[in-house]
């Protein structure tokens, strides 16, 4: 039945996260930006609210939240600060990879450390992307050595790369090529074969630490090779969930920019009245409000359909939310004028953040081509197969 109604528990968690975002994220937005990191106390608070492993199944120490709940939470977090939304979520990324690719015993073993009360101090990282990666598979290699594996290679654009307590590294089994020979390995803290490269400075989302990960004769036991029933399906699910989360963040960012501009233009006066009372400004605000809503319903539909195993609405939502958020953030800067461009106000940051966020999910172009391929009933030959994979993991 077509319904836009939230369940009672969804309303509660939405309210909780909204309050957290308003009190702990938004007021500290610039402080966290300058520090380039989030304080431990903030991560602890986030953990204590039960958001630590929100999306993991209860058996793995999580809350078993649905994808629609996940979308609601991400919208609120990003409404507070998109950068914090990404940084706070880092353990989930690794957890998600383990959930999608690990067997039950591995899930128990690796996720426990995030779920326990001290889990907030631990972050996870996913090493997937490579500079100039092959069309299918990876340049990073995994070689058999005795009962274990040795990893060699370089991973790019890794959130918490090198500093996380646990890395999930994607690599190519020695002597293979393409997806059939690809696998994922868990590298635990203290492994001297894994090093973080220099931190990469970003256009936006400064709170998020991104670095290369360098693997030099990184030795790991056989039990740390994730053991999926279907590797490709696991990877697709991991990226689908990540794409959804990121699209929901774009909605939160857009709402933040819209509401800020809505307030500002009613305070700011020109020619004797609030600038919002000029039609050119009011109409722009009306379009921004509409953009935010349309993007939100696209994300909600994607979440609800993804639960059912239907992925096309997600590809639509990704491109739609990226476009809408950029347009709204740009309008917000424009409506604030000079005030929109200076750092006294957050809107200039949101215009940078939205571009960065667009690369933390699947690129809009790949998403659009996935939709077209489906609609035209054929793979688009000559174009890279689209896995909805992000640039940043």
């Amino acid at each position: 039945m077509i319904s836009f109604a939230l369940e009672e528990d969804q309303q509660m968690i939405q309210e909780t996260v909204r309050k957290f975002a308003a009190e702990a994220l938004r007021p500290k937005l610039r402080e966290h930006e300058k520090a380039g990191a989030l304080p431990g106390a903030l991560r602890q608070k986030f953990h204590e609210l039960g958001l630590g492993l929100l999306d993991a199944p209860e058996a793995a120490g999580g809350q078993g939240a649905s994808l629609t709940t996940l979308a609601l939470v991400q919208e609120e977090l990003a409404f507070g600060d998109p950068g914090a939304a990404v940084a706070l979520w880092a353990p989930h990324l690794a957890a998600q990879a383990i959930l999608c690719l690990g067997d039950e015993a591995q899930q128990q073993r690796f996720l426990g450390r995030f779920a326990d009360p001290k889990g907030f101090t631990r972050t996870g990282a996913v090493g997937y992307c490579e500079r100039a990666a092959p069309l299918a598979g990876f340049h990073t290699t995994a070689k058999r050595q005795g009962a274990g594996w040795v990893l060699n290679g370089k991973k790019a654009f890794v959130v918490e790369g090198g500093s996380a307590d646990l890395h999930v590294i994607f690599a190519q089994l020695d002597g293979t090529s393409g997806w059939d020979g690809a696998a994922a390995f868990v590298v635990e803290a203290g492994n001297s074969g894994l090093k973080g490269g220099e931190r990469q400075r970003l256009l936006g989302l400064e709170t998020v630490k991104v670095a290369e990960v360098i693997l030099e004769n990184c030795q790991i036991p056989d039990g740390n090779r994730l053991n999926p029933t279907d590797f490709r399906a696991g990877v697709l699910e991991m990226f689908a969930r990540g794409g959804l989360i990121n699209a929901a963040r774009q909605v939160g960012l857009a709402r933040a920019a819209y509401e800020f501009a809505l307030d500002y233009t009613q305070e700011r006066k020109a020619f004797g009245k609030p600038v919002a009372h000029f039609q050119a400004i009011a109409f722009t605000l009306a379009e921004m409000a509409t953009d935010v809503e349309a993007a939100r319903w696209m994300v909600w539909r994607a979440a609800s359909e993804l639960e059912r195993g239907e992925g096309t609405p997600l590809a639509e939502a990704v491109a739609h939310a990226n476009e809408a958020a950029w347009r709204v953030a740009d309008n917000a800067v424009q409506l604030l004028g000079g005030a929109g461009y200076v750092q006294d106000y957050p809107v200039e940051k949101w215009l940078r953040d939205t571009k960065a966020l667009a690369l933390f999910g699947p690129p809009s172009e790949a998403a659009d081509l996935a939709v077209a391929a489906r609609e035209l009933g054929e793979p688009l030959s000559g174009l890279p197969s689209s896995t909805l994979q992000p640039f940043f993991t």
Partner: protein
Amino acid sequence: MIDFQLTSTQAQVKEFAHQFSKTVVRPISLEADRNHRIPDEFMLRLSQMRQMMTVGEVPAEYGGEGGGAGESKDKKGKTQKNRFALIGAEELAWGDASVLLSLPGPGLGGPPVQFTGTPEQRQRFFSVFKEPGLHYGAYGLTEPGAGSDVAGIRTSCRKDGKHWILNGRKCFITNGGRADWVVIFATVDPSQGRAGHRAFVVEKGTPGFSLGKIEEKMGLRASETAELVLEDVRIPDENLLGGEAHYARGKEGFMAAMKTFDSSRPMVGVLAVGIARAAYEHARDFVREHYQLARAIPRYAVLAQTLAEDKRLVDAARLMCWRAAWMADEGVPNAKEASMAKAYAAKMAMKVCADAVQILGAHGLEQQQFVEKWYRDIKVFDIFEGTGQIQRIVISKRILRESPNF
């Protein structure tokens, strides 16, 4: 629970309406457009079919008929009427929006009779639709000098014993020429603004009430758009919607005019969605048939990107319309959301229809390809039922703390 799946009954309504649209409506679409008229025998067959159909198979396009699909109440006394109506209407508009607008029934005149009329008036004016033959209601608000500025209407009404005398002109009235009755909005005194408005049901054949002309339009040509003339038309008290007491509170007449839009704007929005979807699907199938690897890949990729973008715009607009309809079903005020849905859908649909013409290239201009018709049809969706600009005024007045004076 957040959900976007149709119920099995809704899926049936959708499938039925789609098949009907595809096999019955679409085949007459081009000819009706050329002739500026849908043949009476076609409409008659349509209305007979409609009467034979059991409840639940035909969407109740507009409130007031009762017993339509989705009208059964749940435990909280809520219906899914608006959602059902949107699902059926999208499919029919996919076939031809003109046919949909020409369907016999109270049309836009339904809501004011339903919401403002007394039980006796509802009974009296709705009963005509149960009689055999083609019966229409219509909605007369727009005038040559007042469209968007509803408060500026000049059609006058003055009390004369137990009657009212109406004088003025109404224009752009859908089905106005053939309507059994038209809800006419008039003013007792233009200087009173909205408080001076009264809504009357003016019946066909009332002396002094005549047809000016039938408009020839850019699109939706098969839909009748009429000019109506009122010259000393005597209307009995019983035809004042809601009775006189209803207007004692001030702006009731104006509110009656506006109330119509809460359910009609999402409906108009979803008609634009139906046309846009038709154009999108036509272009998609054209690409599928004509471009398969026959062109260099970059050209193909650009087409693919355009199609994907259009697909998601259509879907987003539909969700906006569903949202406003869901609110209406829940009994939540939805004026802002209804305006958002309508404005968004119209804008999106114009782009999608223009893209379809472009994708078909020279073929896009040929009449037998349909897309040139949809390109003409769609423009009015950004004009009627409140222009895109009026929608933005409605939205901005509701999002700003104080109502701006523009």
